[in-house]
């Protein structure tokens, strides 16, 4: 889509350089890159994410100068950064909250791609590279969360490494290599630190590929209609989109700054301010908010299917929920990119977003607790009668009734009976099963089916036409100030 280069070196040096290393031309072409003129604010998150990556790498390099990767000193060294390093509190708050901001932006970016069909031909490779980046982000964030060596760091990493151990055949070996031994300790912390430092640069490399792949077919746009006429449909990236992205980045920074300066611990867990103690498991081990939906899917699988046990099945479902994103370009059979013109898909997409957010809440809550209760708590008299092993439960409203029923039991039965609270309600587990099922149905059933049964609405003939329609301009000769964009 990018036409011939319009860059012309002017000075002697740039002419000389241009024939040897055309790096100035490369930069100039990036800035001139023809970009659809109808991109909305959802399209600014790519730029926001690039900034997030830079912020994380820069703040992380500074933190690594002060951090001590040792189980004895890690917790205290992070606190030392917060207390004694000049502006260490700022750098650390930026890095810790920056991870949350990064994921917030990446989720918006991914939902935008799913809504406008940005994964469809000819952009499949852009999408797949994006999913690779997302996977690397998850790995980096997980290992980064272990480094402060708090309670949630330690026990969270124990849960995840055990999951990997559940993979048949290779699982135990991978687990041992990951932990650097039979248990989580200094070797684990050291290799996590090493990989946490390495992976962001791998991400940066794949981001370069992601952008390269983007510059082959060019941006998708909210109509999903391909660029027909570069002069009428597009604008040069600079200054049009540098200024629009710049505005969005600043607004995003305001949110970021709110967390850094006024609620630095709001997105974390109080538990992680307690130094890791392998002998004391926290009551509720939960990951950071951005991984909660996958955690909910993991815990939603409480049943065996055939020879596959629930634990392994949960792991498969969790990895599958990310892995499925790789094949989305081929699951979606519709020829229409943008869901603006897909009435049914649009509604199912909104439900999909709701399901993802709902799964996040499921992941944060105890699966056996209730989303809502059907009524006030009752009492259950639990006892086992002679000859049977199945305990019986009798339900009472009044404590006096339960006591008198207990009194009527034979003495030997009564001694082993108990009166407990009996609650009945809708469990978080069930909600996570429903929403998790919807997550997979959306990709595996709805997207393939809709391409066949859905009747899309009429699309505009071109980007320029869609813009003109929106503004109600009668004339076909819209002012286009970018004739030099590409010839």
């Amino acid at each position, binding site marked *: 889509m990018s036409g011939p280069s319009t860059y012309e070196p002017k000075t002697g040096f740039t002419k000389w350089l241009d024939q040897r290393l055309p790096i100035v031309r490369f930069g100039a072409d990036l800035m001139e890159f023809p970009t659809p003129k109808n991109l909305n*604010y959802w399209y600014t998150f790519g730029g926001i994410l690039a900034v997030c990556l830079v912020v994380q790498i820069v703040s992380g390099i500074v933190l690594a100068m002060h951090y001590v990767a040792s189980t004895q000193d890690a917790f205290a060294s992070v606190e030392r950064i917060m*207390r004694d390093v000049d502006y260490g509190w700022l750098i650390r708050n930026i890095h810790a909250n920056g991870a949350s901001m990064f994921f917030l932006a990446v989720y918006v970016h991914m939902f935008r791609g799913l809504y406008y069909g940005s994964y469809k031909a000819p952009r499949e490779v852009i999408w797949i590279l994006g999913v690779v980046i997302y996977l690397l982000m998850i790995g980096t964030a997980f290992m980064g969360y272990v480094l402060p060596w708090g309670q949630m760091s330690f026990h969270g990493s124990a849960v995840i490494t055990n999951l990997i151990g559940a993979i048949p055949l290779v699982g135990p070996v991978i687990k041992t290599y990951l932990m650097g031994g039979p248990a989580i300790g200094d070797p684990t912390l050291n290799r996590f630190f090493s990989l946490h430092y390495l992976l962001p640069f791998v991400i940066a490399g794949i981001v370069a590929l992601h952008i390269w792949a983007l510059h082959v077919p060019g941006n998708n746009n909210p109509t999903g209609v391909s660029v027909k006429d570069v002069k009428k449909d597009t604008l040069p990236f600079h200054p049009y989109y540098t*200024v629009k992205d710049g505005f969005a980045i600043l*607004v995003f920074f305001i949110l970021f*700054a709110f967390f850094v300066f006024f609620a630095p611990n709001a997105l974390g867990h109080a538990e992680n*301010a307690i130094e890791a103690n392998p002998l004391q498991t926290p009551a509720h081990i939960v990951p950071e908010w951005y991984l909660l939906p996958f955690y909910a899917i993991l815990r939603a699988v409480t049943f065996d299917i055939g020879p596959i046990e629930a634990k392994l099945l949960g792991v498969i479902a969790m990895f599958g929920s990310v892995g499925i994103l790789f094949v989305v370009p081929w699951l979606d059979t519709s020829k229409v990119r943008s869901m603006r013109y897909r009435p049914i898909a649009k509604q199912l997409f909104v439900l999909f977003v709701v399901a993802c957010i709902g799964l996040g809440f499921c992941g944060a809550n105890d699966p056996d607790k209730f989303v809502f209760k059907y009524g006030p708590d009752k*009492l259950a008299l639990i006892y086992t009668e002679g000859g049977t092993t199945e305990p019986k439960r009798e339900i009472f409203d009044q404590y006096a009734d339960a006591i008198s029923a207990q009194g009527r039991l034979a003495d030997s039965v009564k001694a082993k009976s108990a009166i407990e609270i009996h609650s009945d309600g809708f469990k978080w587990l069930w909600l996570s099963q429903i929403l998790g099922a919807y997550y997979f149905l959306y990709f595996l059933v709805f997207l393939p089916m809709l391409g066949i049964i859905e009747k899309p609405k009429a699309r505009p003939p071109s980007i320029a036409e869609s813009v*003109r329609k929106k503004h109600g301009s009668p004339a076909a000769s*819209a002012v286009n100030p970018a004739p030099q964009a590409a010839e």
Partner: protein
Amino acid sequence: MRFAKLALSGFAVLAIGAIGAAAIAQQPVTPVTPPVEQPAPTTAAPVDPNAPVTAPAATPAPEAPVAAPVPAVTPPQTTAAGGHGGEEHGGEHAAAGDHHELTPAGGWKHDGFFGTFDVNAMQRGFKVYKAVCSSCHGMKLLSFRNLGDVGAPFYDARYPNPNDNPVVKKIASEFSVPKVDPDSGGMVSVPGIPADRFPSPYPNAIAASVANGGAVPPDLSVIVKARNGGAGYIYSLLQGFVTPPAGLNVNPGQHYNAYFHGDTASQWVGKDPRSKPPGGFLAMAPPLVNLDIRLRRDCVEGAQGGAACNQDTFDDGKTTTIEQQAHDVAVFLAWASDPRTEARKQLGVAVIPFLLLLSILVFLSYRRIWRNVEH
């Protein structure tokens, strides 16, 4: 575009508000001299609020001594001098996991965008920590010099290097710190200097556990960050040692606390489990029982007039009720958990309005650059 217009006007309003608020917040936050006013006619030297503390405190006695104004087992409602609202202690609302923490009357001064720590409360709170908590709980992440940092309880602008601060020096010297003797190589206990860390009361976790019936007293350096509810939790817990409701069995060595994040179900015998009391059981005995004796000012005969000598007050004249002590030590611990809170908020109230203004300017540039483009 409509969204952008709305956002623009919203930001403009916010920016004006934030700049106004930032101007208000520019009032000096850190006092030039320690604000604790000692009533005694001392010299201009910085005040030392620790003077009355004669020796490292013994473990608080579980029984209230004669002089204690409040029996150990009185419900917190009656001890609350600050007059916080009566909190529901009854069973029905208090399922485990439902935490209703107490809030001091008027809230926490350090809450909110412009909140700063109450310096007097921090100084009194440090005194409570030193007299009571420090006998079992360490603060290993803090050094004495931290007490003289900007925003810290004993900051004095005359001593930009906290190691020179005489109050901090005095406090440090009152703790004995284990060190290697340069002459013999053996361990000796010497008076601390500002660069030293707070000494931990036990050499290791095993010693702490043995001395406390199996429970290890947690380090208090980051305790406010490490508990849901934060300072409010500490404040409530210290007032939560109430008489156990009838029917609640308390094991020997355990103490019922209405605000502890625990569960009372297993000890609630012969009663409707739905009405089990809130809270849980702690190995820690009610700590703030006979504190009044240790915290009141030194009574040298005739030094300050006889009448003041018998009052149970802090150096600055605050009455040492349990509620007051719980509040003050919670403020001190909140500072200790995040000593850069004030610097953080002060920078925030400058950064966010700056970003708002810059984003408005960039938005206007955007409008100008795009003015002739239909999009």
